[in-house]
């Protein structure tokens, strides 16, 4: 029985690893060297090339996005850097350097927004760890509970402590898994974007250039997409809601990942 259980875990692990497989291109080392040597433009081209490769459509590496953000920041493009840092944090909310740099570039952009996903739990543990670890613990508890309840040998011994422990593992593990899933920034990222147009963008009350202005949004501001109407998207940012041209915003997920 134990052997079968371990086989099952192994299959799950292999399937996850297989899904996350992506080869790290060799050019990254030279890009890193260019960035360290003070040539951010060269490094940026290399990072862009790597991140736009087909291997990185469904998966990505937060560290490459962070490095790209550094290159953009050093090139003086704080807006692009903020997007790269946000994407790095989206993939790995525990990536502390990305958080620090995002705070800096947002400040430079005049946005005093609290950095996202900065709860004490979430900056310590990656959501994947919470979800998968919680799921493993929960299912182990579930299996243990099944054994304790249905096996005659254990039933005769009547060990309530063991059953309680298994039940606790079942509940806590799955609760942890749910918490991780809820806290995962990628959960909402599909409907999130940043203002990427140059200069302040005007929110309109209807999808038309001539519509009444509802307020403005600074470049780099995080927004939530509520609906889409052709070239105009209805968005919200804090208390502000209105329509904005889709050309003035960039989705948080890269287009390939978003699709």
């Amino acid at each position, binding site marked *: 029985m134990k052997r*079968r259980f371990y086989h099952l875990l192994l299959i799950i692990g292999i399937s996850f690893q297989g899904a996350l497989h992506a080869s790290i291109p060799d050019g990254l080392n030279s890009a890193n060297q260019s960035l360290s040597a003070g040539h951010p433009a060269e490094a940026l081209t290399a990072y862009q090339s790597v991140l736009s490769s087909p291997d990185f459509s469904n998966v990505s590496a937060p560290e490459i996005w962070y490095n790209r953000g550094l290159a953009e920041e050093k090139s003086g493009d704080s807006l692009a850097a903020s997007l790269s840092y946000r994407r790095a944090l989206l993939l790995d909310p525990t990536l502390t350097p990305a958080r620090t740099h995002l705070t800096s570039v947002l400040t430079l952009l005049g946005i005093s927004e*609290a950095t996202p996903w900065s709860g004490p739990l979430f900056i310590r543990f990656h959501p994947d760890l919470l979800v998968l670890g919680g799921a493993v613990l929960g299912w182990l508890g579930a299996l243990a509970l099944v054994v304790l309840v249905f096996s005659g040998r254990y039933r005769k011994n009547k060990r309530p402590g063991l059953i309680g422990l298994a039940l606790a593992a079942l509940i806590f593990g799955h609760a942890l898994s749910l918490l991780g899933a809820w806290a995962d920034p990628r959960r909402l990222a599909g409907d999130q974007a940043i203002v990427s147009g140059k200069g302040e963008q005007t929110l309109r009350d209807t999808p038309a250039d001539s519509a009444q202005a509802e307020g403005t949004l600074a470049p780099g501001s995080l927004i939530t997409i509520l609906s889409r109407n052709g070239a105009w998207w209805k968005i919200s940012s804090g208390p502000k809601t209105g329509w904005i041209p889709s050309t003035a915003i960039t989705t948080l997920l890269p287009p390939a990942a978003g699709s």
Partner: protein
Amino acid sequence: MCSISNRGRWIKPFMIGNILKLMQVFKTALIILVALWIFVGVMVSDCRAAGNTSVTAELSRAEINAGEMAELQVHVSGADNARVPQEIQVDGLQIRLTGQSTQVQMVNFKVSSSVVYSYIVMPMSTGKFTIPSIPVRTDSGTMQTAPLSFTVLDSSGVAGQTGSGGGAQVASQPGMPGFAAPRQVPQGNAPPTEGRMAFGEITTAKKKIYAGEMIPVEISYYFDARYPVQILSNPDLASEGLLVERFPDPKQSREDRDGITYNILTFHTLLSAVKPGSIDVPPVKLKTQIQMPGAVPPGFDNPVFQQMLGGQNPFTQTRELMVKTPSLHFDILPLPKEGRPASFAGAVGEFDSDAVVANPKPLPGDPAVLTVKIGGKGNFRAMGPPILTDSDGWRTYPPADKIDSSDALSLEGVKSFDFTLIAQEKKTNSPGSEFSYFDPTTEKYVTLSTKPLPLKASPLTDVVTPTATALSTPVQPSQGVNKSPAVTANSNDGEPLSSFTVRSWKTPVQRAEFLIGSLAMLLAAVSLGGILHFRDLQTRQGSVAEQRRRLTALWASLNSGTLDAASTYDAALEYATLLGVSESDEVILWITARRDVLKYGVGGSVLLGSDERSKLLETLGKISSNKASS
């Protein structure tokens, strides 16, 4: 009577029905007739119009300043297919066709139509020009407009330039105020003198001011209330070394002076000087257009005609008038260098300060915002930010500022400076602030300060996680630099990470592998439960069958009478125990006691007596039947 009434009763419905039918016929005929009449009328009038073709040309303004434009309209009536030139060649002017419009009028059932061709006239030089006759080709031949004279003045403009006649259209400046004709334009051929008709005044509280000091200035323009006025520009208050705020909307009022009622237009603004010295502000001009009485043509000046017009003079002329204020002189004093604080950043006026922290408990690594508010009266736009004190352990950025004015000119109000602060070490207080200004009333510098405010902030670098550490490239501390937390944090900046982890853009829950894995685990748990339950059941079922077999065998051996006495009681004890009789039960105790006597005493090895065996079997049979029934 009776017959008549009967006949009338019979005839009435017939007559009413016919009358209704007739009315319907008449109504239809009438509609057709009216339509025909209108159609014929239109056709006749069109023919009449066609036979009466005329072309005229008209300039929107006969005089313009250089840089302005005028409109030339060519009216063609009575011809449908007129052709006009696209451009009209005049040296020094550029005249181009911009479009056409058709006007149809119906007066006393006479329909007339005219086509208006619009040209834009752009002067390329100043001087007097003559726009030649414009040829208009129609189906009935080529017709010519009358030549027009056109004057382009120097853009500096001279007050009192005479304009076109009363019929000229004036392009008014949008958003500019004006005084509509409050009264009829007075009679008379001689216009009043300009000084009495319109003049300006400029007043200021001080003429000796400090560099950077903001002083309010009031500019009033007086217009004789009898003449309609259109304002064409803002006052052109400008002088080298002076900064002038934009003019808010002027206020309008009315005042009697020297027996004349004046409409007054009052502009308020703020002035400040950028450098010490003496500044002469030239007269502040305002470009206006005034409608004045014009000359009465011969034949219209007899009293009878004027009485017919109700005493009004319909012949007016529009004049552009540049209204001026007197000039003004300022002495600009330098700000004293003695006693100038280090935190002085150009503020001149009277101020106070306050500070507030918007988010006193930011999350680790998140910025706190310290807002320093400078309130009072002075040069808010020119003043620089306060300086932060006790800012060690903070990373700070240049503040964003915002002015909330309590007046339109922003002389009084509050200027807020938002400092973004990022803790580089654990902090329990915000920085303080220091702000200095020069008070022109007391002629001294004043320094204001705010105390550090309580807050709780910590850097993100305090929370170093195993994951983050594993992901981050080990960064070598910079050599020979200050080891304060802020500098250490900065020294880590800019180093790219060289170890990579592959992450999905989807959450685990959104991925098929997770769902498949979860389903597999659920299936495994259910299967495991099922298997265990089945096994347990199997085990339990196996033991019962065995028990039954043993009981049957025991019962058979007890009944056979082949066992000795001790063995019989042994078998009886096992039988009772297998039936589930408790060890403390009387039957068990009796069987046990008798067996021990037989086994350890005498008679254990002989066959049991038939009576005793029957009694034993009867007891066991009762127990068996009791158990079976329960």
